[in-house]
Protein backbone atom coordinates (compact mmCIF):
# COMPACT_ATOMS: atom_id res chain seq x y z
CA UNK A 1 0.00 0.00 0.00
CA UNK A 2 1.36 3.44 -0.88
CA UNK A 3 1.36 6.19 1.70
CA UNK A 4 -1.44 7.88 -0.19
CA UNK A 5 -3.58 4.74 -0.03
CA UNK A 6 -2.80 4.15 3.64
CA UNK A 7 -3.90 7.71 4.42
CA UNK A 8 -7.16 7.22 2.50
CA UNK A 9 -7.79 4.08 4.61
CA UNK A 10 -7.35 6.19 7.75
CA UNK A 11 -9.70 8.87 6.43
CA UNK A 12 -12.39 6.24 5.89
CA UNK A 13 -12.51 5.61 9.65
CA UNK A 14 -13.81 9.11 10.35
CA UNK A 15 -16.88 11.03 9.22
CA UNK A 16 -16.64 12.54 5.77
CA UNK A 17 -15.40 16.11 5.76
CA UNK A 18 -13.59 15.80 9.09
CA UNK A 19 -9.84 16.28 9.42
CA UNK A 20 -9.49 13.58 12.07
CA UNK A 21 -7.06 11.58 9.95
CA UNK A 22 -4.41 14.30 10.31
CA UNK A 23 -2.51 12.70 13.19
CA UNK A 24 -2.74 9.15 11.80
CA UNK A 25 -1.54 10.46 8.43
CA UNK A 26 1.41 12.31 9.95
CA UNK A 27 2.30 9.20 11.93
CA UNK A 28 2.25 7.07 8.77
CA UNK A 29 4.46 9.54 6.92
CA UNK A 30 6.91 9.63 9.81
CA UNK A 31 7.01 5.84 9.92
CA UNK A 32 7.87 5.81 6.22
CA UNK A 33 10.43 8.61 6.10
CA UNK A 34 11.74 8.73 9.67
CA UNK A 35 10.80 12.39 10.06
CA UNK A 36 8.41 14.95 8.65
CA UNK A 37 10.42 16.75 6.01
CA UNK A 38 8.81 19.56 3.99
CA UNK A 39 8.36 17.02 1.18
CA UNK A 40 6.68 14.53 3.52
CA UNK A 41 4.36 17.24 4.83
CA UNK A 42 3.43 18.14 1.25
CA UNK A 43 2.65 14.50 0.50
CA UNK A 44 0.44 14.25 3.59
CA UNK A 45 -1.28 17.52 2.74
CA UNK A 46 -2.06 16.33 -0.78
CA UNK A 47 -3.51 13.09 0.52
CA UNK A 48 -5.65 14.92 3.08
CA UNK A 49 -6.58 17.75 0.72
CA UNK A 50 -5.32 20.40 3.11
CA UNK A 51 -2.33 22.74 2.97
CA UNK A 52 1.21 21.77 4.02
CA UNK A 53 1.09 24.71 6.45
CA UNK A 54 -1.90 23.18 8.22
CA UNK A 55 -0.05 19.87 8.53
CA UNK A 56 3.02 21.61 9.91
CA UNK A 57 0.97 23.62 12.39
CA UNK A 58 -0.50 20.38 13.74
CA UNK A 59 2.76 18.44 13.67
CA UNK A 60 4.64 21.15 15.56
CA UNK A 61 2.25 20.80 18.49
CA UNK A 62 3.10 17.18 19.28
CA UNK A 63 6.29 15.89 20.88
CA UNK A 64 6.36 12.60 19.01
CA UNK A 65 6.31 14.17 15.58
CA UNK A 66 9.74 15.14 14.33
CA UNK A 67 10.21 18.18 12.13
CA UNK A 68 13.96 17.56 11.95
CA UNK A 69 15.80 14.35 11.09
CA UNK A 70 16.56 11.94 13.93
CA UNK A 71 18.88 8.96 14.21
CA UNK A 72 18.12 5.41 13.18
CA UNK A 73 16.99 4.70 16.72
CA UNK A 74 15.30 6.90 19.30
CA UNK A 75 16.05 6.62 22.99
CA UNK A 76 13.77 8.58 25.32
CA UNK A 77 14.40 8.72 29.04
CA UNK A 78 11.64 9.89 31.37
CA UNK A 79 13.00 12.40 33.86
CA UNK A 80 9.77 13.32 35.60
CA UNK A 81 9.70 13.09 39.39
CA UNK A 82 8.90 9.39 39.94
CA UNK A 83 11.71 8.35 37.64
CA UNK A 84 14.06 11.11 38.76
CA UNK A 85 13.96 10.24 42.47
CA UNK A 86 15.17 6.72 41.70
CA UNK A 87 18.01 7.71 39.38
CA UNK A 88 16.73 8.76 35.92
CA UNK A 89 19.38 11.48 35.68
CA UNK A 90 22.14 8.88 36.14
CA UNK A 91 20.53 6.90 33.31
CA UNK A 92 20.54 10.00 31.09
CA UNK A 93 24.20 10.67 31.88
CA UNK A 94 25.11 7.04 31.19
CA UNK A 95 23.49 7.32 27.75
CA UNK A 96 25.26 10.62 27.10
CA UNK A 97 28.59 9.08 27.96
CA UNK A 98 28.02 5.86 25.97
CA UNK A 99 26.70 7.70 22.92
CA UNK A 100 29.09 10.63 23.11
CA UNK A 101 26.29 13.15 22.66
CA UNK A 102 24.02 15.21 24.88
CA UNK A 103 20.31 14.73 25.41
CA UNK A 104 18.57 16.36 22.48
CA UNK A 105 21.31 15.31 20.07
CA UNK A 106 22.15 12.38 17.79
CA UNK A 107 25.28 10.25 18.13
CA UNK A 108 27.98 11.01 15.58
CA UNK A 109 27.43 7.75 13.69
CA UNK A 110 23.80 8.78 13.19
CA UNK A 111 22.60 5.64 14.94
CA UNK A 112 20.89 6.98 18.04
CA UNK A 113 19.02 10.15 18.99
CA UNK A 114 18.83 10.69 22.75
CA UNK A 115 16.04 12.70 24.36
CA UNK A 116 14.66 13.28 27.80
CA UNK A 117 10.86 13.24 27.88
CA UNK A 118 8.03 13.97 30.24
CA UNK A 119 6.13 11.27 32.12
CA UNK A 120 5.67 8.12 30.03
CA UNK A 121 3.07 6.58 32.34
CA UNK A 122 5.11 3.78 33.89
CA UNK A 123 6.06 5.57 37.12
CA UNK A 124 5.98 2.52 39.39
CA UNK A 125 8.44 0.70 37.15
CA UNK A 126 10.98 3.52 37.04
CA UNK A 127 13.22 4.41 35.36
CA UNK A 128 11.27 4.14 32.11
CA UNK A 129 13.22 4.34 28.86
CA UNK A 130 11.39 4.16 25.55
CA UNK A 131 13.62 2.60 22.91
CA UNK A 132 12.02 3.11 19.49
CA UNK A 133 8.73 3.63 21.37
CA UNK A 134 8.87 0.32 23.28
CA UNK A 135 9.14 0.72 27.05
CA UNK A 136 12.04 -0.72 29.03
CA UNK A 137 11.25 -0.77 32.73
CA UNK A 138 13.41 -0.56 35.86
CA UNK A 139 16.35 0.71 33.79
CA UNK A 140 19.46 1.56 35.78
CA UNK A 141 22.62 3.32 34.68
CA UNK A 142 24.38 -0.10 34.66
CA UNK A 143 21.96 -1.35 32.00
CA UNK A 144 22.79 1.42 29.55
CA UNK A 145 25.96 0.02 27.87
CA UNK A 146 24.10 -3.16 26.86
CA UNK A 147 21.18 -1.17 25.43
CA UNK A 148 23.52 1.03 23.41
CA UNK A 149 25.45 -2.00 22.15
CA UNK A 150 22.17 -3.60 21.06
CA UNK A 151 21.21 -0.49 19.12
CA UNK A 152 24.59 -0.08 17.47
CA UNK A 153 24.29 -3.70 16.32
Amino acid sequence: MTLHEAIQAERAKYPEGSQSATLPALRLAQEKYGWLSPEALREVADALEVTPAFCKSVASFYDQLHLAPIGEHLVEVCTNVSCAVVGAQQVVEAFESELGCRAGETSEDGKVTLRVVECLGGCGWATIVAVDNAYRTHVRADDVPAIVEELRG
Partner: protein
Amino acid sequence: MASVEPIVLANPTTSLAEYEAGGGYAALAKARELTPAEVTEELLSSELRGRGGAFFATGRKWSFVPSKEQIPKPHFLVVNADESEPGSFKDNEILSRVPHRFIEGCLITAHAIDCTKVFIYIRGEYSGPYAVLVEALQELRDRPDIRGDITIVVHRGAGAYICGEETALLESLEGKRGQPRSKPPFPAIAGLYAAPTVVNNVETIATVPPIIAMGGEAFAKLGVENTRGTRVVSISGNVVNGGNYEIESGMSLREIIYDLGGGIPDGRALKAVVPGGSSTVILRADEIDVGYDFDSLAQLRTAMGSAGIVVLDDRCCIVQLGIRFSEFYEHESCGKCTPCREGTRWLTAILRKLEDGRATQRDLDLLLDVCDRINGKCLCPLGDSDAIIVASYVAKFRDEFIAHIEQGGCPFGGASSLDHVLAPIQMSHSREREWLEVGHA
Protein backbone atom coordinates in the same frame (compact mmCIF):
# COMPACT_ATOMS: atom_id res chain seq x y z
CA MET B 1 -9.99 -1.62 56.17
CA ALA B 2 -9.94 -5.18 54.90
CA SER B 3 -8.46 -5.87 51.50
CA VAL B 4 -10.95 -6.17 48.69
CA GLU B 5 -11.38 -8.54 45.80
CA PRO B 6 -10.48 -6.68 42.64
CA ILE B 7 -13.37 -6.05 40.29
CA VAL B 8 -11.72 -3.90 37.63
CA LEU B 9 -8.43 -5.83 37.47
CA ALA B 10 -10.05 -9.20 38.33
CA ASN B 11 -9.06 -12.28 36.27
CA PRO B 12 -6.60 -10.52 34.00
CA THR B 13 -6.52 -11.89 30.48
CA THR B 14 -6.05 -10.57 26.98
CA SER B 15 -7.83 -13.57 25.43
CA LEU B 16 -11.47 -13.32 24.41
CA ALA B 17 -12.10 -17.03 25.07
CA GLU B 18 -10.68 -16.81 28.59
CA TYR B 19 -12.56 -13.62 29.30
CA GLU B 20 -15.85 -15.16 28.20
CA ALA B 21 -15.14 -18.35 30.16
CA GLY B 22 -14.85 -16.18 33.25
CA GLY B 23 -18.24 -14.60 32.62
CA GLY B 24 -17.01 -11.83 30.35
CA TYR B 25 -19.51 -10.00 28.13
CA ALA B 26 -22.40 -11.31 30.27
CA ALA B 27 -22.86 -7.79 31.69
CA LEU B 28 -23.17 -6.51 28.12
CA ALA B 29 -25.92 -9.03 27.40
CA LYS B 30 -27.62 -8.01 30.62
CA ALA B 31 -27.35 -4.31 29.73
CA ARG B 32 -28.81 -4.87 26.28
CA GLU B 33 -31.92 -6.34 27.92
CA LEU B 34 -32.33 -2.98 29.64
CA THR B 35 -33.29 0.32 28.06
CA PRO B 36 -30.56 2.99 27.87
CA ALA B 37 -32.33 4.89 30.64
CA GLU B 38 -32.30 1.81 32.86
CA VAL B 39 -28.56 1.32 32.33
CA THR B 40 -27.95 4.96 33.25
CA GLU B 41 -30.15 4.42 36.31
CA GLU B 42 -27.84 1.57 37.45
CA LEU B 43 -24.87 3.92 37.12
CA LEU B 44 -26.65 6.61 39.10
CA SER B 45 -27.43 4.17 41.91
CA SER B 46 -23.81 2.90 41.87
CA GLU B 47 -22.70 6.47 42.66
CA LEU B 48 -19.67 5.93 40.40
CA ARG B 49 -17.68 9.09 39.90
CA GLY B 50 -15.24 9.66 37.05
CA ARG B 51 -11.78 8.16 37.57
CA GLY B 52 -9.89 10.57 35.31
CA GLY B 53 -9.50 13.23 37.96
CA ALA B 54 -12.54 15.51 37.89
CA PHE B 55 -14.65 13.00 39.87
CA PHE B 56 -17.91 13.90 38.14
CA ALA B 57 -20.83 11.47 38.64
CA THR B 58 -20.75 9.16 35.61
CA GLY B 59 -24.49 8.47 35.50
CA ARG B 60 -25.23 12.19 35.62
CA LYS B 61 -22.79 12.87 32.80
CA TRP B 62 -24.57 10.27 30.66
CA SER B 63 -27.97 11.70 31.56
CA PHE B 64 -26.96 15.11 30.18
CA VAL B 65 -26.86 13.76 26.62
CA PRO B 66 -29.92 15.18 24.87
CA SER B 67 -32.30 12.94 22.98
CA LYS B 68 -31.97 12.68 19.22
CA GLU B 69 -35.28 14.50 18.95
CA GLN B 70 -33.81 17.45 20.87
CA ILE B 71 -30.59 17.49 18.86
CA PRO B 72 -30.82 15.47 15.65
CA LYS B 73 -27.16 14.46 15.44
CA PRO B 74 -25.30 11.21 16.08
CA HIS B 75 -24.00 10.70 19.63
CA PHE B 76 -20.38 9.82 20.31
CA LEU B 77 -18.56 8.08 23.11
CA VAL B 78 -14.95 9.23 23.42
CA VAL B 79 -12.75 7.37 25.86
CA ASN B 80 -9.91 9.32 27.35
CA ALA B 81 -6.92 6.98 27.33
CA ASP B 82 -4.45 9.85 27.16
CA GLU B 83 -3.12 9.08 30.64
CA SER B 84 -0.19 11.47 31.06
CA GLU B 85 -0.41 12.82 34.60
CA PRO B 86 2.96 12.35 36.31
CA GLY B 87 2.49 9.57 38.87
CA SER B 88 -0.48 7.89 37.16
CA PHE B 89 -0.12 4.69 35.15
CA LYS B 90 -3.29 2.82 36.09
CA ASP B 91 -4.95 3.04 32.67
CA ASN B 92 -1.80 1.57 31.16
CA GLU B 93 -2.32 -1.46 33.42
CA ILE B 94 -6.09 -1.71 32.76
CA LEU B 95 -5.68 -1.56 28.97
CA SER B 96 -2.81 -4.04 29.03
CA ARG B 97 -4.30 -6.60 31.43
CA VAL B 98 -8.09 -6.46 31.06
CA PRO B 99 -8.68 -5.11 27.53
CA HIS B 100 -11.93 -7.00 27.07
CA ARG B 101 -13.44 -5.67 30.30
CA PHE B 102 -12.61 -2.21 29.03
CA ILE B 103 -14.14 -2.92 25.61
CA GLU B 104 -17.21 -4.41 27.27
CA GLY B 105 -17.53 -1.15 29.20
CA CYS B 106 -17.32 0.80 25.93
CA LEU B 107 -20.11 -1.28 24.42
CA ILE B 108 -22.37 -0.95 27.48
CA THR B 109 -21.78 2.80 27.62
CA ALA B 110 -22.50 3.13 23.91
CA HIS B 111 -25.84 1.41 24.53
CA ALA B 112 -26.59 3.71 27.48
CA ILE B 113 -26.03 6.89 25.48
CA ASP B 114 -27.51 5.57 22.24
CA CYS B 115 -24.41 5.79 20.11
CA THR B 116 -22.88 3.56 17.47
CA LYS B 117 -19.46 5.14 17.17
CA VAL B 118 -16.82 4.97 19.89
CA PHE B 119 -13.42 6.66 19.72
CA ILE B 120 -10.66 5.62 22.06
CA TYR B 121 -8.05 8.38 22.24
CA ILE B 122 -4.89 6.67 23.48
CA ARG B 123 -1.67 8.55 24.11
CA GLY B 124 0.86 8.01 21.34
CA GLU B 125 3.54 6.72 23.69
CA TYR B 126 1.37 3.76 24.80
CA SER B 127 2.38 1.50 21.94
CA GLY B 128 2.19 -1.57 24.22
CA PRO B 129 -1.40 -1.06 25.43
CA TYR B 130 -2.34 0.06 21.91
CA ALA B 131 -1.19 -3.26 20.46
CA VAL B 132 -3.14 -5.18 23.13
CA LEU B 133 -6.26 -3.17 22.42
CA VAL B 134 -6.03 -3.61 18.65
CA GLU B 135 -5.51 -7.34 19.11
CA ALA B 136 -8.55 -7.57 21.39
CA LEU B 137 -10.68 -5.65 18.87
CA GLN B 138 -9.45 -7.96 16.11
CA GLU B 139 -10.80 -10.89 18.09
CA LEU B 140 -14.23 -9.25 18.08
CA ARG B 141 -14.31 -8.85 14.31
CA ASP B 142 -16.06 -12.15 13.86
CA ARG B 143 -18.38 -11.64 16.79
CA PRO B 144 -21.29 -9.46 15.67
CA ASP B 145 -23.22 -10.84 18.67
CA ILE B 146 -20.86 -8.84 20.89
CA ARG B 147 -20.09 -5.87 18.67
CA GLY B 148 -23.66 -5.21 17.68
CA ASP B 149 -23.84 -2.20 15.36
CA ILE B 150 -21.06 -0.38 17.21
CA THR B 151 -17.78 0.67 15.60
CA ILE B 152 -14.78 1.30 17.83
CA VAL B 153 -11.91 3.39 16.43
CA VAL B 154 -8.63 3.57 18.30
CA HIS B 155 -7.08 6.98 17.73
CA ARG B 156 -3.47 7.53 18.73
CA GLY B 157 -2.25 10.82 20.14
CA ALA B 158 1.26 12.02 19.40
CA GLY B 159 2.68 13.34 22.67
CA ALA B 160 0.87 16.17 24.46
CA TYR B 161 -0.24 16.11 28.12
CA ILE B 162 -2.88 18.76 27.44
CA CYS B 163 -4.83 16.33 25.26
CA GLY B 164 -5.98 14.65 28.47
CA GLU B 165 -8.16 17.73 29.03
CA GLU B 166 -11.44 16.72 27.42
CA THR B 167 -11.96 19.63 25.06
CA ALA B 168 -8.30 19.64 23.99
CA LEU B 169 -8.70 15.92 23.38
CA LEU B 170 -11.69 16.59 21.13
CA GLU B 171 -9.74 19.23 19.20
CA SER B 172 -6.89 16.77 18.76
CA LEU B 173 -9.30 14.03 17.70
CA GLU B 174 -10.66 16.42 15.10
CA GLY B 175 -7.16 16.66 13.66
CA LYS B 176 -6.11 19.99 15.12
CA ARG B 177 -3.60 21.28 17.64
CA GLY B 178 -4.71 20.09 21.07
CA GLN B 179 -5.85 23.36 22.58
CA PRO B 180 -8.76 23.50 25.06
CA ARG B 181 -12.07 25.02 24.04
CA SER B 182 -14.07 27.57 25.91
CA LYS B 183 -16.96 26.00 27.85
CA PRO B 184 -19.95 26.10 27.51
CA PRO B 185 -21.04 24.46 25.34
CA PHE B 186 -20.09 21.30 27.19
CA PRO B 187 -19.26 18.13 25.25
CA ALA B 188 -22.60 16.53 26.22
CA ILE B 189 -24.28 19.15 24.00
CA ALA B 190 -21.59 20.02 21.45
CA GLY B 191 -18.54 17.77 21.67
CA LEU B 192 -16.91 15.80 18.88
CA TYR B 193 -17.88 17.25 15.47
CA ALA B 194 -20.20 19.56 17.45
CA ALA B 195 -22.41 16.57 18.30
CA PRO B 196 -23.47 15.33 21.75
CA THR B 197 -20.48 13.49 23.22
CA VAL B 198 -19.66 11.66 26.42
CA VAL B 199 -15.98 11.68 27.39
CA ASN B 200 -15.07 9.09 30.03
CA ASN B 201 -11.77 7.86 31.45
CA VAL B 202 -10.49 4.29 30.86
CA GLU B 203 -10.94 3.18 34.48
CA THR B 204 -14.45 4.64 34.62
CA ILE B 205 -15.38 2.64 31.53
CA ALA B 206 -13.73 -0.54 32.86
CA THR B 207 -15.77 -0.19 36.06
CA VAL B 208 -19.07 -0.21 34.15
CA PRO B 209 -19.27 -3.98 33.45
CA PRO B 210 -18.84 -5.01 37.10
CA ILE B 211 -21.45 -2.41 38.10
CA ILE B 212 -23.97 -3.84 35.65
CA ALA B 213 -23.03 -7.40 36.69
CA MET B 214 -23.40 -6.85 40.44
CA GLY B 215 -26.01 -4.08 40.28
CA GLY B 216 -25.50 -0.43 41.12
CA GLU B 217 -26.65 -0.78 44.70
CA ALA B 218 -24.22 -3.60 45.46
CA PHE B 219 -21.37 -1.51 44.04
CA ALA B 220 -22.44 1.42 46.20
CA LYS B 221 -21.99 -0.76 49.30
CA LEU B 222 -18.24 -0.81 48.62
CA GLY B 223 -16.14 2.13 49.71
CA VAL B 224 -17.27 5.08 51.77
CA GLU B 225 -19.76 7.89 51.42
CA ASN B 226 -19.17 10.01 48.30
CA THR B 227 -16.47 7.60 47.08
CA ARG B 228 -18.02 4.29 46.23
CA GLY B 229 -16.53 1.13 44.88
CA THR B 230 -12.90 0.36 44.25
CA ARG B 231 -10.09 2.43 42.85
CA VAL B 232 -6.95 1.44 40.99
CA VAL B 233 -4.14 3.40 42.58
CA SER B 234 -0.66 3.87 41.12
CA ILE B 235 2.21 3.91 43.60
CA SER B 236 5.64 5.22 42.60
CA GLY B 237 8.67 7.13 43.78
CA ASN B 238 10.63 6.14 46.89
CA VAL B 239 8.65 3.02 47.66
CA VAL B 240 9.61 -0.66 47.81
CA ASN B 241 6.88 -2.12 45.60
CA GLY B 242 5.87 0.43 43.00
CA GLY B 243 2.90 -0.63 40.90
CA ASN B 244 -0.87 -0.53 40.53
CA TYR B 245 -3.18 -1.83 43.23
CA GLU B 246 -6.95 -2.02 43.31
CA ILE B 247 -8.21 -0.89 46.70
CA GLU B 248 -11.55 -0.35 48.31
CA SER B 249 -12.09 3.41 48.38
CA GLY B 250 -11.43 4.82 51.82
CA MET B 251 -8.41 2.67 52.68
CA SER B 252 -5.90 4.87 54.47
CA LEU B 253 -3.02 6.43 52.59
CA ARG B 254 -0.66 5.01 55.22
CA GLU B 255 -1.91 1.47 54.50
CA ILE B 256 -1.56 2.04 50.77
CA ILE B 257 2.04 3.21 51.10
CA TYR B 258 3.22 0.77 53.76
CA ASP B 259 1.06 -2.36 53.38
CA LEU B 260 0.70 -2.37 49.60
CA GLY B 261 3.73 -0.32 48.58
CA GLY B 262 6.00 -1.97 51.15
CA GLY B 263 7.13 1.33 52.66
CA ILE B 264 10.22 3.42 52.05
CA PRO B 265 13.41 1.67 50.84
CA ASP B 266 17.01 2.14 51.98
CA GLY B 267 15.98 2.84 55.58
CA ARG B 268 15.00 6.39 54.67
CA ALA B 269 12.23 8.42 56.29
CA LEU B 270 9.05 9.50 54.52
CA LYS B 271 9.02 13.21 53.77
CA ALA B 272 5.96 13.90 51.64
CA VAL B 273 3.35 12.32 49.42
CA VAL B 274 1.80 13.61 46.21
CA PRO B 275 -1.58 11.92 46.64
CA GLY B 276 -3.28 12.00 43.24
CA GLY B 277 -0.85 12.81 40.45
CA SER B 278 1.38 15.85 40.06
CA SER B 279 -1.57 18.28 40.04
CA THR B 280 -2.66 17.61 43.62
CA VAL B 281 -1.77 19.46 46.82
CA ILE B 282 1.13 17.78 48.64
CA LEU B 283 0.81 16.03 52.00
CA ARG B 284 3.48 16.00 54.68
CA ALA B 285 4.53 12.72 56.29
CA ASP B 286 2.35 13.52 59.31
CA GLU B 287 -0.76 13.82 57.14
CA ILE B 288 -1.01 10.31 55.70
CA ASP B 289 -3.42 8.87 58.27
CA VAL B 290 -6.21 9.88 55.97
CA GLY B 291 -8.75 7.86 54.04
CA TYR B 292 -8.10 7.64 50.33
CA ASP B 293 -11.49 9.06 49.41
CA PHE B 294 -12.94 12.35 48.22
CA ASP B 295 -14.23 13.76 51.52
CA SER B 296 -11.27 12.77 53.69
CA LEU B 297 -8.75 14.23 51.24
CA ALA B 298 -10.89 17.35 50.73
CA GLN B 299 -10.52 18.06 54.44
CA LEU B 300 -6.79 18.35 53.78
CA ARG B 301 -7.58 20.48 50.70
CA THR B 302 -6.27 17.85 48.34
CA ALA B 303 -7.74 15.18 46.08
CA MET B 304 -7.47 11.69 44.62
CA GLY B 305 -7.07 13.20 41.16
CA SER B 306 -5.98 10.43 38.86
CA ALA B 307 -4.80 8.29 41.80
CA GLY B 308 -1.09 8.64 41.16
CA ILE B 309 0.55 8.40 44.56
CA VAL B 310 4.14 9.65 44.46
CA VAL B 311 6.12 8.84 47.59
CA LEU B 312 9.06 11.08 48.44
CA ASP B 313 11.72 10.33 51.03
CA ASP B 314 13.79 12.74 53.08
CA ARG B 315 16.38 13.23 50.33
CA CYS B 316 13.94 15.25 48.22
CA CYS B 317 14.39 19.03 48.13
CA ILE B 318 10.93 20.59 47.94
CA VAL B 319 12.12 23.58 45.91
CA GLN B 320 13.58 21.17 43.35
CA LEU B 321 10.31 19.26 43.38
CA GLY B 322 8.55 22.51 42.53
CA ILE B 323 11.05 23.22 39.75
CA ARG B 324 10.68 19.79 38.17
CA PHE B 325 6.87 19.82 38.21
CA SER B 326 6.77 23.44 37.12
CA GLU B 327 9.08 22.63 34.21
CA PHE B 328 6.59 19.95 33.27
CA TYR B 329 3.63 22.33 33.20
CA GLU B 330 5.69 24.96 31.39
CA HIS B 331 6.60 22.37 28.75
CA GLU B 332 3.04 21.12 28.39
CA SER B 333 1.23 24.47 28.41
CA CYS B 334 -0.51 24.76 25.04
CA GLY B 335 0.09 28.52 24.98
CA LYS B 336 -3.51 29.56 24.41
CA CYS B 337 -4.06 31.45 27.70
CA THR B 338 -1.49 34.04 28.71
CA PRO B 339 -1.54 33.45 32.51
CA CYS B 340 -0.62 29.80 31.99
CA ARG B 341 1.82 30.25 29.09
CA GLU B 342 3.77 33.02 30.84
CA GLY B 343 3.02 32.15 34.46
CA THR B 344 4.30 28.58 34.43
CA ARG B 345 7.58 29.88 33.01
CA TRP B 346 7.76 32.51 35.74
CA LEU B 347 7.16 29.92 38.44
CA THR B 348 10.03 27.81 37.14
CA ALA B 349 12.31 30.85 36.93
CA ILE B 350 11.58 32.10 40.45
CA LEU B 351 11.94 28.62 41.94
CA ARG B 352 15.26 28.27 40.09
CA LYS B 353 16.39 31.57 41.60
CA LEU B 354 15.54 30.23 45.06
CA GLU B 355 17.38 27.00 44.40
CA ASP B 356 20.46 28.84 43.14
CA GLY B 357 20.56 31.05 46.23
CA ARG B 358 19.88 34.30 44.38
CA ALA B 359 16.43 34.89 45.90
CA THR B 360 15.19 37.15 48.66
CA GLN B 361 11.95 37.21 50.64
CA ARG B 362 10.52 39.43 47.88
CA ASP B 363 11.00 36.62 45.36
CA LEU B 364 9.07 34.25 47.60
CA ASP B 365 6.27 36.81 47.76
CA LEU B 366 6.44 37.18 43.97
CA LEU B 367 6.22 33.41 43.58
CA LEU B 368 2.92 33.32 45.46
CA ASP B 369 1.70 36.40 43.63
CA VAL B 370 2.30 34.69 40.28
CA CYS B 371 0.37 31.65 41.57
CA ASP B 372 -2.58 33.96 42.30
CA ARG B 373 -2.36 35.50 38.86
CA ILE B 374 -2.62 32.10 37.14
CA ASN B 375 -5.19 30.40 39.31
CA GLY B 376 -8.72 30.44 37.88
CA LYS B 377 -7.82 32.69 34.96
CA CYS B 378 -7.51 30.20 32.13
CA LEU B 379 -9.73 27.98 30.00
CA CYS B 380 -8.43 24.74 31.50
CA PRO B 381 -6.82 23.67 34.78
CA LEU B 382 -3.25 23.10 33.51
CA GLY B 383 -1.84 26.38 34.76
CA ASP B 384 -3.98 26.19 37.89
CA SER B 385 -2.36 22.87 38.72
CA ASP B 386 1.12 24.36 38.67
CA ALA B 387 -0.04 27.35 40.75
CA ILE B 388 -1.88 25.25 43.32
CA ILE B 389 0.89 22.75 43.91
CA VAL B 390 3.68 25.31 44.12
CA ALA B 391 1.64 27.32 46.63
CA SER B 392 1.06 24.13 48.61
CA TYR B 393 4.80 23.38 48.71
CA VAL B 394 5.42 26.85 50.17
CA ALA B 395 2.55 26.51 52.67
CA LYS B 396 3.64 23.09 53.91
CA PHE B 397 7.42 23.44 53.71
CA ARG B 398 7.90 27.17 54.30
CA ASP B 399 10.96 26.57 56.49
CA GLU B 400 12.71 24.86 53.62
CA PHE B 401 12.01 27.78 51.28
CA ILE B 402 13.25 30.23 53.93
CA ALA B 403 16.39 28.12 54.38
CA HIS B 404 17.14 28.47 50.67
CA ILE B 405 16.98 32.26 51.09
CA GLU B 406 18.89 32.49 54.35
CA GLN B 407 21.62 30.00 53.44
CA GLY B 408 21.98 31.45 49.95
CA GLY B 409 21.26 28.12 48.28
CA CYS B 410 20.00 24.58 48.65
CA PRO B 411 20.31 23.19 52.18
CA PHE B 412 20.78 19.74 50.66
CA GLY B 413 24.13 20.87 49.26
CA GLY B 414 23.93 18.71 46.13
CA ALA B 415 22.61 15.61 47.92
CA SER B 416 18.94 15.92 46.97
CA SER B 417 17.36 13.10 44.97
CA LEU B 418 16.23 15.67 42.40
CA ASP B 419 19.58 17.39 41.98
CA HIS B 420 20.43 18.52 38.42
CA VAL B 421 17.63 16.62 36.73
CA LEU B 422 17.44 17.45 33.05
CA ALA B 423 13.87 18.28 32.02
CA PRO B 424 12.68 18.37 28.39
CA ILE B 425 12.02 22.13 28.65
CA GLN B 426 15.74 22.60 29.33
CA MET B 427 16.60 20.84 26.08
CA SER B 428 14.58 23.44 24.19
CA HIS B 429 15.99 26.30 26.27
CA SER B 430 19.52 25.32 25.40
CA ARG B 431 18.53 25.22 21.73
CA GLU B 432 17.05 28.69 22.09
CA ARG B 433 20.23 29.95 23.73
CA GLU B 434 22.38 28.56 20.93
CA TRP B 435 20.15 30.24 18.41
CA LEU B 436 20.34 33.56 20.27
CA GLU B 437 24.13 33.35 20.45
CA VAL B 438 24.31 32.68 16.75
CA GLY B 439 21.97 35.61 16.19
CA HIS B 440 24.24 37.98 18.12
CA ALA B 441 27.48 36.88 16.46
